[in-house]
């Protein structure tokens, strides 16, 4: 009987792995398709060639052609994403430490929690219109600063929400012990809390980086040709009279580089971060 059971078990596992292979194929096939398209000539794509001679022409044009702003857009994305992510992580860390580890009246904590919830529920187009009006009134529209501040405001609640679950895991006794030993606030934060929060900060930072890199509606509203980010640049390809599909494909592949790096090196943190906010 044991033999029969283990045989059936093996067969089930084979089916399940087959199911997983199918899922991974469905996930990866579109990426393979766009990567292949990015190495084709426009004619070869239009002809639907399966076999083709790969060309780097599209990448060359996207990156180095005089009419292409893509390198500028890429730089813009790097600037906006890294500055706003750093701001979000630092501000959320201190705010979270203060809110979740020290005594505040309940309504103060609740205001922040409700803000977090509201900002996750409201479509960002509504916020984009709110920021656009304000930025235009003070002459900051189409400026880096407006988008950096907007991304910081947009993602701060989510960072607070994520960090809250990590703060809860730090045993309070450690802080109390450090305090009894005469540690100042600065020492406490630097030597005790920060090291313990490192995994949480990494998860939050990586996730917010990805969100900011991918963010589209607010970037669309607050930038122009000079300050547009990568998603804005790719959207522009799709809006042209005659779409340069292969160049759009090359631009798309380049835009996914940060995501691939994150998946390679920070997958653990991504999974932790994405589940922390929801499950806990």
């Amino acid at each position, binding site marked *: 009987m044991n033999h029969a059971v283990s045989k059936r078990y093996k067969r089930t596992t084979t089916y399940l792995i087959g199911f997983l292979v199918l899922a991974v194929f469905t996930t990866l096939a*579109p990426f393979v398709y766009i990567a292949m398209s990015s190495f084709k000539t426009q004619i070869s794509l239009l002809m639907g060639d399966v076999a083709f001679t790969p060309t780097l022409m599209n990448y060359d044009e996207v990156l180095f052609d005089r009419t292409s702003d893509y390198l500028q857009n890429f730089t813009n994305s790097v600037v906006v994403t890294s500055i706003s992510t750093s701001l979000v992580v630092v501000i959320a860390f201190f705010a979270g430490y203060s809110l979740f580890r020290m005594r505040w009246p309940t309504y103060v904590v609740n205001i922040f929690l409700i803000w977090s919830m509201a900002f996750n529920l409201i479509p960002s*187009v509504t916020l984009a219109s709110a920021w656009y009006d304000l930025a235009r009134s003070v002459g900051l529209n189409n400026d880096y600063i407006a988008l950096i501040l907007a991304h910081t405001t947009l993602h701060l609640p989510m960072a607070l929400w994520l960090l809250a679950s990590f703060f809860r895991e730090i045993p309070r006794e450690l802080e109390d012990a450090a*305090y009894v030993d005469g540690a100042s606030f600065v020492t406490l934060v630097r030597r005790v809390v920060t090291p313990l929060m490192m995994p949480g900060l990494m998860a939050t930072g990586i996730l917010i980086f990805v969100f900011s890199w991918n963010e589209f*509606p607010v970037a669309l509203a607050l930038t122009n040709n000079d300050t547009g980010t990568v*998603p804005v640049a790719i959207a522009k390809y*799709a809006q042209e009279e005659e779409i340069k599909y292969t160049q*759009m494909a090359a631009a798309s592949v380049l835009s*996914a580089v940060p995501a691939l790096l994150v998946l390679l090196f920070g*997958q653990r943190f991504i999974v932790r971060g994405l589940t922390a906010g929801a499950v806990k």
Partner: protein
Amino acid sequence: MAHHNSLGKVLSLTPAVLIFAFLALLPVINLFIVSFHEVSWLGGTKQMDWVGVDNYVAIGDDPLFKAGVFNTIIVVLVATTAQVVIGLALALACSSVGDRSRPFRALIILPLLIPGIVIGAIWRLMYNSEFGIFNLVLNSIGLSGHDWLGSPSTALAAVIVVDVWHWMPFAFLLLLAAVESLPRDVSEAAKIDGATAWQEFRKVTLPLLYPAIFMTFLFRAVMASKIFDEVFLLTGGGPGTSTEVVSFTIFQRYFLQDNAGYGSALSVSIIFVVSVIIVIALNANKSKGLSQ
């Protein structure tokens, strides 16, 4: 309980409070004020004319907004259900395969990390009626192709497929975490009692997962209701209004038609609806005693 340094406590929270006050609250209040005006820009200066509640009254007669609400509800219901069902099946498969499923898990979540606009670009290529992969495959087996995004009958379904593909991994991740934290002894007890795999799933595993399934559904529903990037790139709301969604209506009215007053009224209405939902949710939470 140690007595904490209150200066550090206040200073730590100050930057977040400033952002909340000046970049979250103030713009929304401003939006509220603008929504009662007709806005025009004359040589770089803003001109605001008071129109009372006219902008709000106009919402009822906006065909674009009506179509947007209708389509958004369909997207939320269909896409979210599909994501939860597929995500749950994959989560259960991964958990019963065990450690050998690790590489699969990593690859399955890839779409989550890619910009929505890029996802749109990828599928725009695949859906293309002349050279897209779907029609190429159909042609190669002797069937005629179809203009997936260009015909009103399939455009919304095509958008939903993209959303399912893009966000199913999120449902998968949340449900996998839930499946992995299930107590093992219960399912073992069911096995010893002679339950078949189906009975075990139906009577033991599934009921234990209901709370997680509900949470996942809620999370995804909220995110799906904000769908914008994919629609922007794939269809721009068309053909006609067949893929118009709420976020896109606001974008069109506020930015493309430069109708800031009416666009603000739409935004404020959405924020109002969301606030009502939050209040209801908070009260429900409180009465169930789950606020921890």
